[in-house]
């Protein structure tokens, strides 16, 4: 267990001194990966491999100045690759998170932690959320930080937790201890078609996101994609006033009642490359927002209505059966409609994860998160509350507890040049 590698690792860490952020930018940093599973095409494999063998960035095959020195993997299902990767790339898999962060020694021995709590066999809540143990992984990291009197940056993949309270606690802990904390989906940082951004301090009339997939995996991605756009509005994010989900035919009726904008749906779908129905049949283009086909194609639509404290109303439509991609449209006050597709390049390369790994690398190297973790906190929490609405007979829920205020980063940092 105490390999030569981890022994050297401990020595090196001790020699480096306490604050990793004080290190010279040219020096290589040591990271630990904490994950649920490492199988082919899992998030851990897509993201973890990029630290091991590099990834495309700005037209080069970039080799990060980071060494994965320790891994914790919670489950080893059939197809587990963790042992093979550890042998091929000479790092150690440890049986506990504490040992991983200390590389088998007695003190924190890494300069950054990457938590990837996605995939694996975990129970669901009564609201059908997968109980990935991200909060528990994070807590164990924080415990090591506190015991050893030193903190390092943490990245957390996707939402902080399925539970709003746990998400809030994670962000509070990072602030209390003062370590850089980055989290979230790859959608905010992936390529966009077209590569447009919301001008900082824009005033919104309305915003609509279209997504597909299941809950709470894919609606999360869609909500965070929308959040990275609307957080740029004048005054920044002001928190969530109320949420409500509706399912089924009521979603179409809600358009007639003006609860969401068909014009924005047309704009969003004009950015889709995956129209279903007749387009699948014979590849014809379609005005799917207006040609009356949606109720036939989408038997189970969902609308997530999210009202913000500053009065902005935003909507996510989950339209399984209509499209297979993620698009967004916003009407700016007295201005144009801005619309785009959050482009998810296909398997197996899933290059969007290279965009995310680039952001993680930047945080660990610079000691500064390139965008606020509050984005992930607010989306984690509002999704949890939306699912409360569904569980409670689709009622509108006031959310004074989601009084999460923050300002967007000036630079959006989407797509890699």
């Amino acid at each position, binding site marked *: 267990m105490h390999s030569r590698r981890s022994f050297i690792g401990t020595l090196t860490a001790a020699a480096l001194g306490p604050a990793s952020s004080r290190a010279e930018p040219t020096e290589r940093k040591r990271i630990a990966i904490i994950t649920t599973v490492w199988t082919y095409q899992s998030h851990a*494999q897509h993201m973890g*491999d990029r630290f091991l*063998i590099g990834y495309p960035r700005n037209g*080069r095959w970039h080799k990060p100045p980071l060494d994965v020195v320790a891994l914790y993997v919670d489950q080893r299902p059939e197809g587990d690759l963790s042992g093979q990767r550890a042998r091929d790339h000479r790092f150690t898999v440890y049986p506990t998170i504490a040992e991983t962060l200390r590389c088998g020694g007695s003190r924190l021995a890494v300069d950054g932690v990457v938590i990837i709590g996605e995939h694996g066999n975990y129970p669901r809540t009564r609201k059908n959320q997968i109980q990935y143990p991200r909060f528990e992984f994070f807590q164990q990291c924080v415990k090591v930080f506190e015991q050893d009197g030193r903190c390092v940056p943490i990245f957390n993949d996707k939402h902080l937790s399925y539970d709003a309270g746990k998400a809030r606690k994670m962000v509070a802990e990072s602030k209390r201890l003062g370590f850089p904390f980055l989290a979230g989906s790859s959608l905010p940082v992936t*390529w966009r078609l077209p590569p447009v951004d919301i001008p900082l301090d824009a005033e919104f009339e309305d915003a609509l996101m279209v997504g597909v997939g299941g809950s709470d995996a894919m609606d999360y991605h869609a909500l965070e994609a929308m959040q990275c756009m609307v957080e740029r509005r004048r005054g920044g994010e002001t928190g969530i006033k109320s949420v409500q989900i509706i399912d089924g035919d009521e979603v179409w009726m809600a358009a007639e009642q003006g609860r969401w904008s068909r014009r924005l749906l047309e*704009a969003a779908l004009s950015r889709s490359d995956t129209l279903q129905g007749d*387009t699948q049949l014979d*590849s*014809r283009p379609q005005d799917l927002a207006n040609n009356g086909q949606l109720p036939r194609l989408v038997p189970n639509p969902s609308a997530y209505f999210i009202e913000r404290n500053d009065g902005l109303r935003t909507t996510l439509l989950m339209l399984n059966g209509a499209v297979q991609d993620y698009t967004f449209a916003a009407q700016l006050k007295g201005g144009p409609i801005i619309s785009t597709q959050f482009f998810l390049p296909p398997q*197996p390369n899933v290059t969007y994860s290279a965009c995310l790994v680039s952001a993680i690398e930047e945080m660990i190297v610079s000691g500064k998160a390139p965008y606020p973790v509050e984005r992930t906190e607010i989306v984690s929490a509002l999704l949890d509350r939306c699912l409360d609405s569904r569980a409670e007979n689709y009622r509108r829920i006031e959310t004074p507890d989601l009084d999460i205020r923050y300002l967007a980063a000036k630079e959006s940092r989407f797509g890699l040049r």
Partner: protein
Amino acid sequence: MRLDRRQLLVAFATAMPLLPCRAHDSSRRPRIAAVTPVYYKYSHSQHIVDRFLDGYGWEGRHHRPAMDVVSLYVEQVGANDLSRERAQRHPQMKIYPTIAEALTCGTNKLAVDGVLLIGEHGRFPVNEKGQQLYPRYEYFQQIVQVFRDSDRVAPVFNDKHLSWNWNYAREMYDTAAAMGFGLMAGSSLPVTWRQPSIDLPMGADVEEIVGIWSGGIDGGDIHVIEAMQAIVERRRGGETGVRAVEAMRGERFWSALAAGSWDQGGWDPTLLEACLSRSNQLNPARPTYSHILPTNDDIRRLAPESYAYRFEYLDGTRASIVQLQAAKKQEGGGIVGDCSVAARLKNGELFSLMFYLPYYSTRNFFSPQVHHMESLFLTGKSPYPVERTLLTTGMTAAGIESLFQGEKRLDTPHLAIVYQPTRESTFWRS
């Protein structure tokens, strides 16, 4: 013989007192004819003509072109044909049995304001060099015959290269120039999305450029050659034409791949790496790794039928087209699914991008191309120089000829084609 006939035709055309090509009468919607060998799912004509008939997503709207496709000629109608369904659903579009009738709408005079010539797909012979003999030249001749008979011309869009045959292409170009109608042509790659969304700065000093894709003599070659040309034409001084071409495959290709530089008989490997790094579709070269940069050994194993064309421009610029091609029916074969280019500029800077062709069933890379066709039909002028496609048609044919002649280096004095690119970029970015 061929040249004589061409010269004669051109002289004849020049002498004819045709009405000059100009924007159509703006008081009514332009009427468009489409001529094509086939009309089935995923054929170029389906993608293009459907966008005129059904509209398409554009800049945040479902855009409907302000013109009508009123006539259609389809040479080969099989069980998978969609033209009949389209004509039924769009009764303003009539199907005619000949190209002449499509252009005259059954009268004796040209009755359209623009022509879509989409000569792709369908059953046509393949010659000994591997070129499929699509009848674009023959269709074009029938179109201009109607123009002559009607004393009137209309702008023509020609899909992909002008022809598999250089002399045919030159004649098509000269005829359009002599008769004075707008001719637009080429691949959709130059105008589709780019990743990242950039263009070569106008007037950049390009030393060397590499373009890659996954092979396909002629049909695949023209796309990557024209994509590369749409970048390199923006270099300092504009386009000067191509002086020579040299093709390589087999052991000569593997030597070039390992050579390490143009001067050593290959290309700058940094540029190949940049191209590979721009792809979203790298075939995983090592088991259990989903995204890994292939080594030269991986390329040899996974793309054993690779080949390359090295072009020397008249101003000294060097361009390599590297076609990373799997063997026929090679299971798990192939290196790359995307077309990308990378250039080294004189200041040592690297410039690289991928031409993104939306992978899904909508094939939306046809949308920007159709957008430019609308512009051709509304203004009478091609929105970008057809000389680009004239040159790339010649480069493609010359590359294939070099391959056919045992990878012999060929001088290409006929490709001294000089033109200037549009200052404004024309690729999809809004």
